[in-house]
């Protein structure tokens, strides 16, 4: 008999969140907690997971932009979870860079979800995992967080902050045997990138979900998704700042 485990997916009504829930349900016989704002949508996904994969799935409301609710969310989630907990943080918004430049408060809204919300809920959940002396944490960052690109630096900044936070969180939780995996996806073919010009680079969310699950189960510290972004970003990180600030991409 397999040991009981629970996957908590924050941001589960996003395209990649739903795909990850499906991938977990198909590959592991784990309980799945879907967390997000659109409760109707999440209930539909939970039903779909139960019918297709026979897993135990339930929905808990979660608003990344409301950090004062996160303590209660973390308590409720850990009460409902069974066995080893894997927390996956996927909540994110990406207003267009030019929209942010016209209306700078959009940047604050974005940081609230992508970074502040992530920090608060993950700190609460980290405390709970420490008490249970086990678990896993998966944080979805972005290749956009590796450099401040002219075309997308507001979003990139929120993700760069998330990367630094995740690195430190990994150091904190490591002694308890809690592994933290940072995923850095390239563009994914979901509603987040639908409004952008078609690039052909965007990865199908099902394939992204498969790669995220594999990286997590192998205990990887950082994983680019797809892996080809690893060498690409290594090259981009080596571009000297003096040159990078002249680039328009």
């Amino acid at each position, binding site marked *: 008999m397999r040991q009981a485990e629970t996957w908590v997916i924050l941001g589960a009504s996003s395209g990649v969140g739903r795909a990850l829930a499906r991938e977990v349900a198909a590959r592991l016989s784990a309980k799945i907690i879907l967390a997000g704002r659109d409760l109707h*949508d999440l209930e539909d996904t939970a039903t779909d997971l139960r019918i297709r994969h026979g897993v135990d799935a339930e929905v808990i409301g979660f608003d990344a932009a409301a950090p004062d609710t996160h303590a209660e969310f973390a308590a409720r989630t850990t009460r409902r979870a069974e066995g080893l907990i894997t927390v996956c943080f996927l909540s994110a918004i990406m207003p267009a860079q030019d929209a942010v430049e016209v209306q700078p408060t959009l940047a604050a809204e974005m940081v609230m979800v992508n970074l502040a919300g992530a920090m608060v809920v993950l700190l609460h959940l980290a405390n709970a995992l420490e008490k249970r002396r086990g678990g896993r944490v998966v944080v979805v960052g972005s290749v956009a967080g590796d450099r401040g690109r002219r075309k997308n630096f507001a979003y990139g900044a929120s993700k760069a902050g998330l990367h630094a936070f995740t690195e430190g969180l990994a150091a904190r939780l490591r002694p308890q045997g809690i592994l933290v995996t940072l995923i850095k996806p390239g563009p994914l073919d*979901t509603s987040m990138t639908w*409004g952008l010009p078609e690039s052909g680079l965007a990865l199908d969310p099902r394939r992204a979900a498969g790669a995220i699950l594999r990286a997590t189960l192998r205990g990887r510290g950082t994983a680019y998704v797809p892996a080809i972004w690893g060498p690409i970003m290594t090259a981009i990180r080596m571009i000297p700042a003096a040159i990078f600030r002249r680039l328009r991409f």
Partner: protein
Amino acid sequence: MVMWRSIERAGWGGVAAERMEAARPERIAALLATLREPGARGLLAVGAGCSYGDAGLNGGGRVLLTERLDRILEFDAQTGLMVAEPGVSVADVIAHFLPQGWCLPVVPGTGSVSLGGAVASDVHGKNQHRVGNFGDHVAWLDLLDADGNVRRLGPGQQGALFAATIGGMGMTGVITRIAIFLQRIPSSTMMVLREKVASLDALIACLAERSSRSEFSVAWIDGQAADPALGRGVVESADWSDEDAPPQPVSPFRVPFTPPASLVVPLVMRRFNHRYWHAVPDRRAAVPRRAQAFFFPLDRVVGWNRLYGPRGFLQFQCVVRDAAALAPMLRACRAISPTLVVLKAMQGTGRGLMSFGITGWSLAMDFPAGPDTMALLQRLHAQTAEADGQIYLAKDIAMTAENLPRMYRKLDRFRGALRDVDPRLSWQSSLFRRLKLFP
């Protein structure tokens, strides 16, 4: 705020590409938001894009791709009632439910078709003569109208709008939920019988006889054969097997890109048809086949429609009451021989006001697109009208508005239903404008 992406799309046949703006909602809430931005040429919900012609296009307008609305929402193992979102594909349902002893009662020739599209085109399968069309098995539908209201429709619930939605080519709104009764099956295997027949008369007689005895029946005709072998072909019939045969693994072959020129040229097809005809053994014994392989023979080649090259292909599909109308149609194709010809016995009309189907014979032919193909299709349409038949709108690109009332006798009632549900013409398609479906 809705994100619209400018896309260029053609029908499944690869002809008549048009530019349009597309949204791809992942949640119902996102779908609702699109209704506030209909644009000048209206909106059209599009499933998997398997309509051959322009039924799934809205050139210069906006489309709502439903492919991400793909969840199964309910299944009752007592009654077989399944509720699902419109973007769930036929193949997806079959892959999941076949091992549990359930199947969709109507399975079209490709598994890529979405459930929403299956309702909107009121599709049929190789068992149409027994069980009717897809819509005949729908218990209820949720329809999102242009005002953002979700209406539950069924045979006894807003019946007029239900009948306008089944086979209604998306003109009544967006189907957001489909409840359909699955059928209990004894195994995932079919016992398939094939018989070679040397002439059209013999083929029709054989198909009629097989249809009266078997659950599934269809005939493949050698499109290159002329008199006296005109209409020679292979009649295929099948029934569910009582027990499962050992699985035969098949690996799909993918057509990676559109070749610069059609690979489906007459010389190749003549060889293929000739070989296929001679490959069928003369002995008459049923052989076991996996249900998916029987349902979707072409799906083994993913993207087979690309083999026709950049010019694409056109499909003609009609249904006529009298088999005597078939020979003149086959003879009309002497100049441009069809690459694939399929004949099917049909029984009864569908539930929808615009459903395809009358008791008689359905003839489907694929033609590579070329300068004279449209003229040939017009000639075939005239023959169909002459024979009091119908052209299948989901396959069509060539029909003229004048032929429509004669082929679809409930057109006035359909237009009346559209006037009631959509007076502002919020739902439109390229087919809608070509055939002047305007109420």
